[in-house]
């Protein structure tokens, strides 16, 4: 799609992001344009309102928006924006762990971590019963009763919680999703 190096001129940290995220230059450019579109007041960064507008119809919209912001931060700049989106790139089949290169954002493990953090809002490394109930309530809205919610959460914890501490830690989470095709379901197919 043309000379990538020069067209990335307007993109903050363009070269570095190219290597880090594995996005193509063309895609990076379009994501930058998208970022600028979302940045309605041209501040150079996004606030949660800018993202919330796009996610108003998603039951867990607030959580997803939260995933873009570091704890305590109220704005997200373009590099951070792209780093989060990089989690949703399809996994490269032939990437192997060699301990030298940092793990790419779209590895199976990182995708799982991303999903785990959607559940684990207080970032204490465990999905507590309360947190699970919260997510379920968001995904189901007012369509189910409190009892139904409790029984769903109960069953889910029973199935996944192997060390019986009434919470699901990351390893337990990963184990319960062993056979799921994470790559396919946590990836967005880009048109190049």
């Amino acid at each position: 799609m043309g000379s990538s190096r020069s067209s990335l001129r307007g993109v903050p940290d363009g070269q570095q992001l190219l290597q880090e995220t594995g996005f193509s230059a063309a895609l990076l450019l379009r994501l930058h344009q998208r970022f600028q579109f979302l940045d309605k007041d041209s501040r150079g960064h996004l606030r949660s309102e800018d993202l919330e507008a796009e996610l108003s119809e998603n039951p867990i919209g607030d959580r997803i928006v939260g995933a873009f912001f570091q704890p305590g931060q109220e704005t997200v700049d373009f590099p951070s924006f792209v780093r989060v989106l990089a989690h949703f790139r399809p996994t490269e089949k032939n990437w192997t762990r060699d301990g030298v290169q940092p793990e790419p954002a779209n590895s199976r493990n990182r995708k799982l971590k991303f999903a785990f953090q959607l559940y684990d809002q207080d970032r204490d490394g465990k999905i507590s019963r309360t947190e699970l109930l919260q997510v379920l309530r968001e995904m189901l809205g007012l369509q189910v009763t409190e009892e139904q919610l409790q029984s769903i959460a109960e069953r889910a914890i029973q199935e996944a919680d192997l060390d019986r501490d009434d919470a699901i830690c990351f390893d337990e989470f990963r184990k319960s999703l062993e056979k799921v095709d994470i790559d396919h379901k946590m990836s967005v197919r880009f048109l190049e």
Partner: protein
Amino acid sequence: MELFFNPFDNLLCILLGISFTVWFTLLLVFIIVPAIFGVSFGIRRLYMKTLLKIFEVRAPIIAREPTSLEEEIKEIRRSGSNKDLDSASEFEMSDIFYFARRGVESIMDDEVTKRFSAEELESWNLLTRSNNNFHYISLRLTVLWWLGLLIRYGILLPLRVTLAFTGVSLLVFLTSLIGLLQNGRMKNVLSEKVHLMCYRICVRALTAIITYHDSENKPKNGGICVANHTSPIDVIILASDGCYAMVGQIHGGLMGVIQRSMVKACPHIWFERSEVKDRHLVAKRLSNHVQDKSKLPILIFPEGTCINNTSVMMFKKGSFDIGATVYPVAIKYDPRFGDAFWNSSKFGMVSYLLRMMSSWAIVCSVWYLPPMSREEGEDAVQFANRVKSAIARKGGLVDLLWDGGLKRDKVKDTFKEEQQKLYSKMLVGTQEDRSRS
């Protein structure tokens, strides 16, 4: 005297005369005559292809596979479990992937539709007439933009206004003439031809490029044609492909003149302002009309208000109560070519029409759906909803359950609710399922 009439002036007059004649002839040959005979040179489609090429209409970033919530979540689970899925629709930790992915897709690529403000598109699409986030990207695009503005307002708009004027005046004139004839077959045939011709001229006046699908389902006499409503142009679009009896309130001014002359040629149903409130009167007139099989099918937009072409609001049940066969029609405008949505609280009719006529083109698709009738044990509201769903599905529009009357308040929650409902249905089933087991 000779001081005033120098040869240059003469030449100028001659040139002007010639160009005017040429212009008018071209207009006649390429636009009006085809309109009369209902043929097309394919000029408009060529124009559309050219536009798309010039502006390099941006493709979306993401390849969207339209799968439903249920299909996807089941697929995710199937890959992760050995259980027989259909019997155990329980919550799985992987269910969140679906929502997360959809959310990220919405952030990356704006295909999530917004109900009442115009469908927002990728901002670099210069085909849309107004670009709210017009950033200076490159000289080429800026030049194109200004050139486009010039062409649209300088050339296209005057051309279209001329055509519109021609079309409307022909309509008024000819229908009044026909009104002088005796009622009979001749009158009906002529009236049909005249209506079609004038609507076709109007279609060209808007440079509307319409694709009709499934024409075998076109509405027949004694039926009611029901369509979703995005703009007043909907009428022109449908009426240029078939003859309908219109229903509406009598307006004053130009609109009223048109309405009054139309009804001379064939029986349309116009109501006085006072009569509109009287539901029984309306229903009675409608049912009298449909019972007369010699009369044209009625064209009705049950939503009652313009929706921004991404969803179909609750259909008002009046037209579904009459007991006639309903012919649903779905109209979907291509948003790449400009926004046909009329936000009546923001723009008046005239400024809306001017906007339409200074856009590049209006591209839309019309689907004629198979006729539906009210079934045993169905009341008008259920029937209306059934028709509405059929229309929404066909046009790729979102079937929503609330009244278009809420247009002025922003209510975004309901779409979220729909998702929650679908998901909860998967997990806990509906009331009936639970009581059965």
